[in-house]
């Protein structure tokens, strides 16, 4: 789950990381009321879960309250790469201006199996670009999760990126706080870009990005409340509630598969054979009849779907359970969309008998199933 910038920065503040004063607004009037507190000297920023806001016109500086209102007017409703802006953050400009910008982040290094803190003097830039063009300008330390972040690591980063010595103590505290925030929040990324030195000589996080591990939500109730499901399509919200992994795509062949790898593969093979998948749907391990029924209802709620490919290879998931779910769902759903079914693995034989009794078409292999689904979708 990704936090909005304002949520990320408020989380930073809870861990003692300085952030600008400000608040979020959903209307130009609200934005002006906030700007008034800062004499109109604010930055108005689109709150969307996507990068590249500045280039898209989603971040604008204001000198007066009226200007802040105009900017909010322009940004609210703005479409940034398919993400509609419903909210803006109105932040006071950094006191005394911005002297210098840095990049600072903690993330999980999958290769090293450790959290890693990265810092660079190339703040405000696209860090992937910096990593590609001038990797020597990025300084990295790996953190042993049993030991935690140590001050010598902060010193290495600070000296590497050329931070003035007078700020090392402040930087040490800030990095240590950021690491605590990362671990305590079950984050997979906590990024400050840019981290600035204000005209008053203070370090401040003027932008923030935080991603939280979905598997840890059960122990992060405060963060779970921050999730904004309203931005996902209705079908994806419903799938999430049912515990299904679902992603809406643009094609016309609905897919219901167990297991993420096989679900991706089923999409790939449909595309390879000349069809277009309508979705990614992993019903997960141990899917029961009720779950299968919900999955089918979600797939069929998309009017573009002209055929459904159901590919279940039983391990934890039992073929007979899935077959019962399909038969039960089809009794309740009034549809003439053709279904192509394939069952194999645990209890597949029992499942196939249930499907045969219900006169449902089956396929033996995945390529056979994909070919039949593509044919069926053509009508």
């Amino acid at each position, binding site marked *: 789950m990704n936090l909005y910038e304002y949520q990320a920065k408020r989380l930073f503040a809870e861990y003692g990381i300085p952030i600008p004063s400000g608040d979020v607004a959903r209307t130009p009037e609200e934005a002006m009321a906030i700007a008034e507190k800062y004499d109109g000297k604010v930055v108005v920023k689109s709150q969307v879960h996507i990068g590249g806001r500045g280039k898209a016109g989603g971040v604008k500086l204001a000198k007066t309250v009226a200007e802040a209102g105009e900017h909010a007017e322009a940004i609210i409703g703005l479409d940034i790469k398919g993400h509609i802006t419903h909210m803006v953050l109105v932040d006071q400009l950094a006191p005394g201006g911005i002297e210098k910008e840095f990049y600072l982040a903690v993330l*999980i290094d*999958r*290769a090293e*199996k*450790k*959290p890693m803190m990265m810092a660079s003097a190339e703040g405000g830039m696209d860090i*992937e670009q910096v990593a590609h063009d001038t990797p020597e300008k990025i300084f990295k330390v790996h953190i*042993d*999760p*049993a030991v935690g972040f140590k001050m010598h690591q902060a010193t290495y980063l600070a000296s590497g990126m050329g931070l003035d010595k007078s700020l090392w103590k402040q930087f040490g505290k800030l990095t240590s706080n950021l690491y605590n925030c990362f*671990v305590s929040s*079950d984050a*997979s990324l906590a990024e400050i870009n840019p981290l600035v030195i204000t005209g008053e000589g203070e370090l401040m996080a003027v932008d923030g990005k935080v991603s939280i*591990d*979905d*598997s*840890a939500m*059960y*122990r992060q109730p405060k963060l779970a409340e921050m999730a904004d499901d309203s931005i996902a399509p209705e079908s994806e919200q419903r799938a999430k509630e049912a515990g299904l*992994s679902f*992603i809406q*795509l643009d094609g016309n062949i609905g897919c219901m*598969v*167990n*297991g*993420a*790898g*096989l*679900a*991706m*593969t089923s*999409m*790939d*093979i449909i*595309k*390879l054979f000349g069809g277009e*998948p309508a979705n*990614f749907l*992993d019903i*997960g*391990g*141990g899917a029961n009849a009720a779950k299968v029924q919900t999955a089918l209802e979600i797939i069929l709620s998309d009017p573009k779907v002209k055929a459904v490919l159901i590919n279940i*290879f*039983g*391990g*934890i998931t039992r073929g007979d359970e899935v077959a019962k779910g399909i038969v039960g769902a089809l009794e309740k759903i009034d549809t003439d969309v053709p279904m192509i079914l394939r069952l*194999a*693995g*645990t209890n597949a034989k029992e499942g196939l008998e249930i499907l045969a009794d219900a006169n449902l078409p089956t396929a033996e*292999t*995945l*390529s056979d199933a994909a070919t039949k689904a593509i044919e069926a979708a053509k009508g």
Partner: protein
Amino acid sequence: MSILVNKDTRLVVQGMTGSQGMFHSERMLEYGTNIVAGVTPGKGGATALEKPIYNTVREAVEQEGANTSLIYVPARFAADAIFEAADAGVEFIVCITEHIPVMDMLKVRNYIDKKGVRLLGPNCPGLITPGECKVGIIPGNIVTPGPIGVVSKSGTLTYEVVFALTYRGMGQSTCVGIGGDPINGTNFIDVLQLFEEDDQTEQIILMGEIGGNDEEKAAAYIKDHISKPVTAFIAGATAPPGRTMGHAGAIVEGDSGTAEGKNEALRAAGVKVARHPEEIVDLILG
């Protein structure tokens, strides 16, 4: 021969008395796996499927000589279960549980590395040495003994390919599902190395998916260290960027982690790359 599990495996099942634990323990016993004990805290002294249940893994190791542990414990207790197995002295731990928080797995991985214990998973289907031993949930009826070593990030995709192999008369030495979590135990390179050293294994199948760079690293390893023919398939060529495709680790971010990039790296290492799972078998038959 085979790798990791065989007739000498003495298995303890952590979480055996739960519904999934019972269902799959029964399948494993049917297959001939030597389950020596189950562990469920608070149920010590009971029996399940005619096997003794202990409160701790330590007792199962001391009383029954368990050398391998299989974990079916719910996600919020699973990391603790792995620590317990590692401390109890089993040599090999297989964790089926999905949705273990990454922060927990970071601690687990760094701990077991120092201990020198091997972990497979989490969020994996386990492994099977056809005709000898099944540890986990890979269906026993789709495998058959033979010369092909299979290693995969995905559970059901593994079944798909193994099914296709068996269907066309090609048996397997061992099939290993390493799981698709961002932080896990045994990786492609570990298994490739074991297959290279295994006499029974003549060819290797590697199945990866989008996200991370495990496949690229495996490709580099194959180029320098693997003499046996390798055939590969990468799932997720059609996945949209920035969306996690079911497995926490399966996400294309920017230009990194794409199926195309992985396929190119594998081809450059002399690996035959299939476009869909059934084609793997065609490529092996040549």
